[in-house]
């Protein structure tokens, strides 16, 4: 007992200090517990690690399988002509999907034109004017992002197509834009929140107007997140089918519709086209995702 740390100190003094004796006892409790439990704690840690390691391949496997299937079934169909030629009627060889690519591009362009600026302004409002209205808007955005895309499609049909008796890419773009908007708003707002209040205050204290700080400090700081979030939202929108069902005149005017249409036809040619289109779409989404990462990475580097 005399080798105990605090006992030693206590014995040096005139009389034993009960506080130090207690401290020594507590120290023994912790050391003992740490040593006795380390095996159990390590085992629990390893088990957790194992679960995580198992979860990763299980989660990634579907993606890998999907890519392999699409590539193996679609690669045969894809060539330059496939991308550049218009579809041909059933039985006529040499058709491509150029109309669908152009149509999808147009639709997405309209959607971007609508959703990107709106998403930025709404997010700026949420950031700059917190309060009851902002909360309500944020809540609506969350609800909207949960609305099934088919419902957005039928709504657009009622508002545009039925009223003007006209299918159009513009209507389809509107439907996609409505679908992408809430994702963009929330991504933008999250990105703005990563800009610290200190920087905002530094800007304001220099005499800048709020709008100037919003532009030069908040938006600039949030840019990597904003670009990434918007690109990912676009990637999400490119692949949507349901909003287009009610709004696009012909399945040959949008890639997703073409896939749906041709895949359900009995002809091998059509099915081959469907897989080829699926591969093109997949590649497009992949490119968008890579762009999002690259842009974010480059912008982040610049500020360091």
């Amino acid at each position, binding site marked *: 007992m005399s080798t105990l*740390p605090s006992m030693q100190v206590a014995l040096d003094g005139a009389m034993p200090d009960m506080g130090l004796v207690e*401290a020594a006892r507590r120290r023994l409790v*912790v050391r003992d517990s740490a040593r*006795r439990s380390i095996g159990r704690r390590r085992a629990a840690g390893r088990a957790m690690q194992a679960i995580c390691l198992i979860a990763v391949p299980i989660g990634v496997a579907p993606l890998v399988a999907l890519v392999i299937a699409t590539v193996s079934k679609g690669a045969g169909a894809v060539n330059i002509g496939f991308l550049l030629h218009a579809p041909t009627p059933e039985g006529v060889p040499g058709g491509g999907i150029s109309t669908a690519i152009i149509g999808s591009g147009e639709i997405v362009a309209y959607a971007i034109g609508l959703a990107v600026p709106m998403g930025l302004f709404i997010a700026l409002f949420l950031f700059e004017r917190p309060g009851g209205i902002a909360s309500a808007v944020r809540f609506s955005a969350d609800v909207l992002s949960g609305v099934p895309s088919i419902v957005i499609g039928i709504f657009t049909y009622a508002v545009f197509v039925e009223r003007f008796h006209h299918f159009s890419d513009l209507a389809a773009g509107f439907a996609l834009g409505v679908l992408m908007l809430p994702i963009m708003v929330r991504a933008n707002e999250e990105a703005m929140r990563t800009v610290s209040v200190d920087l905002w205050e530094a800007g304001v204290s220099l005499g800048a107007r709020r709008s100037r700080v919003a532009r030069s400090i908040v938006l600039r700081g949030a840019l990597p997140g904003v670009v990434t979030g918007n690109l990912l939202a676009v990637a999400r929108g490119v692949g949507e089918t349901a909003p287009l069902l009610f709004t696009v005149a012909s399945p040959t005017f949008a890639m997703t519709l073409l896939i749906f249409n041709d895949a359900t036809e009995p002809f091998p040619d059509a099915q081959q086209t469907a897989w080829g289109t699926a591969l093109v779409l997949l590649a497009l989404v992949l490119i968008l995702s890579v762009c999002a990462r690259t842009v974010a990475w480059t912008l982040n580097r610049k500020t360091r």
Partner: protein
Amino acid sequence: MKRHDEVTDPAGNHSTDSRAHVEGRPGRLAKESKAPADRPDPGAHGAAVTLEDVSISFGDHIAVRNVTLQMPAHQVTALVGPSGCGKTSVLRAVNRLHDHTGGAVRGTVRLGSLDVYGPDVQPEVLRSRIGMVFQRPNPFPTMSIFDNVISGLRFNGVRNKRLLREMGIAALHNAALWDIVKDRLSQPAVRLSGGQQQRLCIARALAIEPEVLLMDEPCSALDPVATAKIEDLIRHLSGEVTIALVTHNMFQAARVSDNVAVFLLGDDRVGELVEVGPTDRVFDTPNDARTKAYVTGHVG
């Protein structure tokens, strides 16, 4: 073990080596500086920290080089010097925090006679013997005040409710926080003021009854009143636990430390230890010209 006895004596009676020669200041810690020669293995009575030729690098960048330093048991050793000269890196080498940040530690670090980077050392068990307090108060925001204090005990497998309560209360007393928080132990820790949060973090570190307390500029985010309280606490605790204190503030080093280790940036932008010794001696009659310039530049 034997090697350890050669290089360090936590009570500081190894007078042939000026670096190891450390005395308690007059009127303070008299017990510690008195008749230390008959002490048994220093490791057995609250260990000192020993660094032998320690270099720390991050990738290609060497943060600090060839540090040889003893931190005597039950005393406060201040690590001072300008920013970027490796003080914090040295501190973090003691409890192996560099394991997680990609820093490479070369040389030997000892806790008592234990080789901190030895092959059989389990970092978790090692860290249960060392407390750490960070620059900014960092109580766990999802825990109550009391749960913060006993979190380290829980992490180390203490489950007995009565023990947890008793040890948590003792830690709060030791951190001079009991009277302030005794009526709101179950409130969220983040409701405390900054200074109180920092003392809570000290209580949290003390609850595991560490042999060594590492403090990384614990007052840099605090006002003078809160700083004074922390400094009082450091003085009070030094009798029971070995304290390593990183600080920018030369006055603080002079006020609370028994020994001071001065780090500076070398010509090649690598941090190095230029002088170490009893605080009074280093401040009054520094051996090294660079120390003198630094010390007088800040103090005089």
